């Protein structure tokens, strides 16, 4: 490991924060306490953590329907996030957006998104703005394997390379678009292959390995900031929960064996093994950290539960500036 201890511990914490938040959120949803749909990020934590550990609030990201993990990794507060999932007035979007539109402009988070593939073109705009304003930042767009089949992804990839924009296109390939396996929705195995068609580097990385993600993103960010244009980073990963919620609709679209194989490569477990091996963080300390974070997450839930519903009079607010 070439990363310093502080960075390693930072990545580790971000992953646990996501895991704990998402597990609690899923539990609450399945208990009927969170309305609407929740797409949970558990299994994919190494991607958000490895990349967000290198971004500041002035670096912009666009997210997806599976967006809580990105926001947490970017510094989202549990309380205000849960309040949003509950539809409370103290939520990041005053209860108007919910899970699929959770966002925080102050943290440089341009929103989860209910429209698959909607993020990349918006990120092109954010990257253009960064270049235009001559600031030393990047934009990062997260999207799934499924989303890489939308025309919007292809238009964004072309424009980003054409204008040499400071952008990272991060494909979180978890092998499925909803219930359709990748082999049934695209003929390529590596989404990264598509980069060649637009004239940018395409990199495949183990999305369960936070350090590998960190390092490839680091190179891509350097390239972007040097004015050399975008990179397509494909992170091979897996979602441990169902498409929606934890257990979801119970469709038999993937096998338990496949899930178990991937769970053996749990990004947090693997990371903690390494941390212990290198003497960065002992197993007991890691366990303690999980407990501390769980307590913080539970406080966030309490904050959300005790928050007021929005006043119906706010319905027509914020339609226009």
């Amino acid at each position, binding site marked *: 490991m070439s990363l310093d201890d502080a960075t390693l511990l930072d990545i580790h914490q971000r992953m646990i924060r996501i895991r704990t938040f998402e597990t609690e959120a899923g539990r609450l949803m399945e208990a009927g306490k969170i309305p609407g*749909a929740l797409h949970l990020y558990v299994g994919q934590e190494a991607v958000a953590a490895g990349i967000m550990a290198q971004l500041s609030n002035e670096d912009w990201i666009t997210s997806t329907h599976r967006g809580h993990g990105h926001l947490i990794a970017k510094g989202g507060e549990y309380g205000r996030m849960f309040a949003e999932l509950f539809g409370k007035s103290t939520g990041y979007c005053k*209860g*108007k957006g*919910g899970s*699929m539109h959770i966002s925080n402009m102050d943290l440089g988070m341009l929103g989860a998104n209910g429209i698959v593939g909607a993020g990349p073109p918006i990120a092109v705009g954010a990257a253009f703005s960064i270049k235009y304003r001559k600031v030393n930042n990047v934009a990062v767009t997260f999207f799934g394997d499924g989303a890489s089949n*939308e025309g919007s992804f292809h238009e964004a990839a072309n424009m980003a390379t054409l204008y040499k924009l400071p952008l990272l296109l991060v494909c979180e390939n978890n092998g499925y678009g909803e219930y359709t396996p990748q082999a049934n929705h695209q003929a390529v195995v590596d989404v990264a292959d598509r980069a060649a068609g637009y004239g940018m580097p395409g990199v495949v990385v183990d999305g369960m390995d936070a350090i590998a993600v960190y390092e490839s993103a680091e190179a891509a960010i350097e390239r972007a900031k040097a004015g050399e244009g975008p990179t397509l980073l494909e992170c091979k990963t897996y979602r441990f929960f169902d498409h929606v919620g934890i257990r979801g609709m119970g469709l038999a679209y993937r096998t338990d064996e496949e899930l178990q194989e991937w769970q053996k490569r749990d990004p947090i477990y693997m990371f903690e093994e390494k941390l212990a091996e290198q003497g960065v963080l002992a197993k007991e300390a890691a366990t303690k950290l999980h407990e501390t974070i769980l307590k913080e997450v539970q406080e966030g839930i309490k904050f959300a539960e005790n928050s007021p519903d929005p006043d119906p009079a706010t*319905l027509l607010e914020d*339609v226009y500036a």
Partner: protein
Amino acid sequence: MANTEERTLTYVAAVAEAVEEVLNEQETAFVAGEDVAGAGGVFGSFRGILEKFGSDRVIDTPISEEGIIGLGVGSAATGLRPIVDIMFMDFMGECMDEIANQMAKMRYMFGGSAKLPITILTMSGAGMNMAAQHSQSLEVWLCHLPGLKVVAPSTPYDVKGLIIAASRDDNPVFVVLNKLSLRVSGPVPEGDYEIPIGKAEIVRSGSDVTVVTYSRMVSESLKAAEELAKNGIEAEVIDLRSLQPMDSDTVIESVSKTQRAVVVHEAVRFAGLGGEIASQIQERAFDYLDAPVARVGAPFSPVPFSPVLEQAYLPNAKKISAEVSALLG
């Protein structure tokens, strides 16, 4: 011998049964859309269809709405009769060129030489806390495009009959379904039958006011009518069923009798179908009217996520009866 016991199906099961009828009847019919095959549709609209007809005719597509509609347009123009699914109506944004500039206009632009027998199934409506991009009622986008037909069934019976009619029509027909109605049950005959496209139904007779509506607002309007009846107001409720073409004659005839009208839809009130219908009523039945035509629709905002706000947003029986009561003064 006819069954004396009426068979009932849910709204969503009626979709699947209609699709099955169509695939049985028409060799050139196939189904394509996101998760329609393996998963049977995320709402269950296509449950069992893959198992019955196989993967040559029941096709999971990539998440590529423009591609899906294009697949429909191109295959229909060359002899097939596609049934394509756009999971949520909100996703039409991804494929609006194929819908508005290709599908709707190809026949006309080609001087009548092309024929596009496409059935497009899609889900509309709020009330499930799905927020601003999964809850819209955008039927008016479609009704504004010459060349398209649009139906919006309110009952399982109409779902089946309208899908079958749509599949036999030689034009593109959008079947705008409603999410909150999916689990509603109602009588559905076995075998095939058609609900004619362009024909409204009077679902409740009354003499004091005409309520013109469609989709899920039919049941809300009927609830409102029951409430109003307690106060001696008898509302006639018309389920348009078909929005394009629209059965204005039935509306005008009713309003000529009741002399008052309220148009009700879940879609945003401003520039919604209510404006069109109110205008037609004043054009054709002005002399009969005792009051201006009233409209009930959603306020001018995106659909909010918070359940409290979403309930404030949605038209419902209470808002409808309040509007009718105000109209009758």
